[in-house]
C-alpha cells in the first residue's frame, strides 16, 4: 500500500521553495506591471485578512488592561487605550481557581508533551531504518488507526475501565501518540544520510546513541514543529476534561475555566467571591475575563515566533511510503 498523504516529501524540495521565493523578489521582465485597481483590491483584501485576525486580539488585550472607568465610558469592550491598569491581572492571579488551573494546564502540557515526544521520537526512529524487522507491519499498524477507530464511547469505556475517570493520566495517555506526528518525524529520520549513520556505527555507536547524537541534532526544525503541535494539543485540550473530569473544578485546566468563567459567565465554586470579580471595586468583571483570555494566549505567543518559520517543513512532510 502506498500512502501519499501530502505533497512535497523532501527537504530538498522545501529548500528549493525557499530559494525560489527569494528569487521571486524581483518582478521578472516579461511580467506586466500591476494595474492600480488590481494593486488596491489586493492590498485592501490582504489588510482586511490580517485585520480580521489582529483586531479582536487587540481589543481583548486593551480591555484586559482597562480600568472600570474606561470600560464604562466605552460601554463594553475598549478599542483604544483609555485608562490602563494592571489590576485585572493582579486580581486574576490572586484567584485560587485561576491559579490552580494555570498550574494544571502547565503541568499537563509539559508532562504530556514530554511523554508524547519521547514515545514518538523513539517510534519514528525505530521505524525509519531501512529493512529492519517487521517495520512495514508496524507502520501499517500505525496507519490503520488514522482511518479506523472505535469512536467516542468505546474509547471512553476503555479509559474508565482502566480507572482513568477523574485522573490526570486520562488527559494525557489516550492522546499521547499522534500517528501523523510520528510519520512526519519518520520522514525526516529516513532522510538522515546513511553514510553518517554508518560512520557512527563504525565508531561503536548503538541505535540509542545514533538517535541522540546524530539523528536528533540534524532534525531540530522538525522536532521543534512536532513539539509545538503536541504542546498546543495539550494546552488546548478541553473535551477530554469534559469526558473524564467534568465535576471536579479543582482539577480543571485553563481552557475549562475559560469556558465556564468567560464564555458562560458562571461563578466558580472555588472562587473567592462566587461570581468572579463581581464584587471587586477596582476591577471590571469584563477586564478580568479578558485577562483570562490573554492568559491562555501568552504561552502560545511566546513559543510561536521561534517555531513559525519551520511550519511548512513540518506540515508538508506527511508523506509515507508504507
Amino acid at each position, binding site marked *: *500500500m*502506498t*500512502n*501519499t*498523504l*501530502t*505533497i512535497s516529501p523532501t527537504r530538498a524540495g522545501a529548500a528549493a*521553495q525557499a530559494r525560489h*521565493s527569494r528569487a521571486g523578489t524581483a518582478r*521578472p521582465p*516579461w*511580467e*506586466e506591471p500591476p494595474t492600480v485597481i488590481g494593486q488596491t483590491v489586493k492590498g485592501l483584501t*490582504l489588510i482586511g*485578512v*490580517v485585520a480580521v*485576525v489582529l483586531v479582536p486580539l487587540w*481589543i*481583548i488585550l486593551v480591555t484586559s488592561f482597562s480600568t472600570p472607568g474606561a470600560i464604562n465610558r*466605552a*460601554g*463594553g*469592550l475598549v478599542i483604544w487605550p483609555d485608562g490602563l491598569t494592571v489590576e485585572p491581572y493582579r486580581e486574576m492571579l490572586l484567584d485560587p481557581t485561576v491559579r490552580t488551573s494555570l498550574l494544571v494546564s502547565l503541568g499537563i502540557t509539559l508532562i504530556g508533551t514530554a511523554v508524547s515526544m519521547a514515545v*514518538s521520537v*523513539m*517510534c519514528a526512529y*525505530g521505524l525509519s531504518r531501512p*529493512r529492519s*524487522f517487521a517495520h512495514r507491519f*508496524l507502520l501499517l*499498524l500505525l496507519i490503520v*488507526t488514522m*482511518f479506523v477507530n*472505535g*469512536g467516542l*464511547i*468505546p*474509547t471512553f*469505556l*476503555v479509559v474508565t475501565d482502566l480507572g482513568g475517570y477523574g485522573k490526570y493520566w486520562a488527559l494525557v495517555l*489516550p492522546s499521547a*501518540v499522534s500517528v501523523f506526528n510520528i510519520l512526519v518525524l519518520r520522514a525526516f529520520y529516513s532522510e538522515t544520510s546513511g553514510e553518517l549513520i554508518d560512520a557512527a556505527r563504525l565508531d561503536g555507536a*548503538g*541505535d540509542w546513541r545514533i538517535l541522540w547524537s546524530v539523528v536528533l541534532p540534524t532534525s531540530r526544525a522538525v522536532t521543534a514543529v512536532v513539539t509545538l503541535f503536541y504542546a498546543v494539543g495539550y494546552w*488546548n*485540550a*478541553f*473535551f477530554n476534561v469534559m*469526558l473524564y473530569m467534568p465535576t471536579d473544578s479543582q482539577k480543571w485546566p485553563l481552557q475549562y475555566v475559560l*469556558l465556564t468563567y468567560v*464564555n458562560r459567565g458562571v461563578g466558580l465554586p472555588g472562587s473567592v467571591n462566587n461570581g468572579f470579580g463581581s464584587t471587586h471595586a477596582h476591577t471590571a468583571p469584563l477586564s478580568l475575563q*479578558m485577562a483570562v*483570555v490573554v492568559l*491562555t494566549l501568552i504561552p502560545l505567543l511566546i513559543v*510561536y515566533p521561534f517555531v*513559525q*518559520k519551520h*511550519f511548512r517543513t513540518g*506540515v*508538508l512532510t506527511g508523506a509515507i511510503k508504507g
Partner: protein
Amino acid sequence: MSVQQPQDAGHPVRLTWRMRIRRDRTLLLMTVPSIALLLVFNYAPLFGLATAFQDYDPLIGVWHSQWVGLDQFRQLFQDAQFWDSLKNTIYLSFVQLILFFPIPIVLALLLNTVLSIQVRNFIQSVVYLPHFFSWVLTITIFQQMLGGAGLLNQFLRSHGMSTWDIMTNPHTFALLVTSQAVWKEAGWGIIVFLAALAGINRELYEAAAADGAGRWRRMWHITLPGMRGVIVLMLVLRLGNALSVGFEQFLIQRDAVGHSSADVLDTFSFYYGIATNNYSYGAAAGLFKSVISLLLIWGANKLAHAFGEDGLYRT
C-alpha cells in the same frame, strides 16, 4: 552492544527471522511504547464496538452484557433526533465545503503574488496564528465580537439601532460555524496550496507570456492546472471527513443555539450515550458514523482516481 554489519551492501544475506529480531532488537524496543499505547487506546476500543450490539451494562462489562443484535440500530433509525443530527451533519458539512473550501485557494493565489518577502512572512505569521487557538478561545473571541454583549451590539446600541445576537440564532448557525472555521483554519489551509504554487515551473509562465498570454490566461492555463493535484487531494480528504464537522465547536455552542440545529452525529453520540449512560446507543450511533465515513473515504478516493489523480492512497 553489537556492532551491526552494514546490511545495505549489495547482496542480501539470508537471515532467519530470529537473527533479524536479534539484530533489530533496539529498534523494535523503541517502537514498543507507541505501539502499546495504540493497542490500548486505539485497538482495544475496536473490540468495545461490540457494545453497539449489546445492551451494555457498565457494572458487568462487555463480556457479560446481553447481546441484542441490531436492536440499538433499529431504535436509532426510529429516533427523530438521530435523523435530525444526521441531517444537520450533512447540511453543515455541505455549507462548510461550499463556503470554506475555495477560500484558502484564493488566499494562497493572492499571497503568492506578494513580492516582498517581509510582507509575505508577516501575513503568513498572522493567518497561521488562529489555527493554534483552542475552540474555546475561538468561540470566546466570536462571543466578544458578535455576541449579545459583544462589540457589534455595543456599537449598534450606542447608535440607537436594534441589537442582533448572532451567537444564539439557530437559523444562521451554519453560517456562524462556517465563519468560525474560516477564521480559525483558512490561514493554515493555505500552506499546501502555497507549496503547490511554489512547485510550478517558472519557465512555463515566461513561455506563456512570450506567446502573448495575459495575467488571467496564465492563471487559468498554468497556475490552476499546476494546483489541480493538491486541490483534488484536499477535496478527497474533506469528503472523507464529511461526517466529522468540528466536534468541540458544536459541543460548546450547543446549549446557546439549541440541540435541534446544533446536534451533529458526534454530539448525538456523546449526549445520548455518555451523558445518559446509554452507552450501547451512543456506540451504535458512533459505529454508524464510522462505517459511513470509511465508505466516503473509499468512494472519494475512487473519485480521485477517476480524475487521474493519486488521491489518498493507491493499492
